[in-house]
């Protein structure tokens, strides 16, 4: 249902690099994943934004970039398909301090495919 009060959503995009292998492509290979994180919330009257940019950067760095960037994800997760990774990343942020602000996490694997 469409709301009749206009609301803002903020999206920031991050680079996360990792390698994986798949059933149909069992050789280890990697991608420069683009992770698009969308957050909601009321406009903070003091700062004029929904969420602090530095705050979002810190959370993403702590929970995704530091532990995962440049790693072999096929050793870290039971499945390392794009569908599965997108889900793990979303659930990781959902359980973090970003929790209630998080609306969606979309992932672009290559120019030709994304996991919305």
């Amino acid at each position: 249902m469409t709301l009749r009060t206009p609301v803002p959503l903020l999206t920031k995009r991050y680079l996360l690099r990792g390698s994986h292998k798949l059933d149909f492509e069992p050789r280890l290979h990697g991608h420069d994943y683009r992770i698009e994180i969308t957050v909601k919330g009321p406009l903070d009257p003091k700062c004029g934004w929904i969420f602090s940019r530095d705050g979002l950067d810190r959370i993403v760095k702590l929970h995704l970039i530091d532990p995962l960037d440049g790693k072999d994800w096929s050793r870290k997760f039971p499945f390392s398909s794009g569908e599965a990774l997108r889900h793990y990343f979303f659930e990781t942020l959902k359980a973090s301090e970003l929790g209630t602000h998080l609306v969606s996490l979309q992932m672009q694997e290559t120019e030709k495919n994304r996991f919305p």
Partner: protein
Amino acid sequence: MPHSLPVTARLARKAYFSSAHRYFNPALSEKENQEIFGSCFSPYGHGHNYVLEAYFEGPIDPATGMVMNLHDIDQILKAVVGPLDHHHLNFDIPYFKSIIPTTENIAKYLFENIQSHLQSSSFSKVELYKVRLHENEDLWVDYGFLEAAP
């Protein structure tokens, strides 16, 4: 091929503008501003090549098959973004004297202005349902009647 058209349709159009801004709340001390806004607080400001996408929904004119002519949309978008283009938002735009020109607030400003231009045009039955404002490739704000937002 079906010959009848649906009653309503959606369309979107882009517009570009380049503006300077700084994040600064006069009610806070210099130190607090620095802590909250970091590099966005610099007294001179800095700029972005903003990309605005405006999304419209409205009745299809049976005479033309269109909701709105792109030329008419461009006239409205130009009237709204023109005054911002190549200006310092904090210094030159009265609305942003008291409101921090964050991407969220600029998106809200654009949404409300396009809405009011639309309502006073001959396309008052067309609704602006969303704007997406890109500050750069890695940061954007959607503002409008968003289905995903609770």
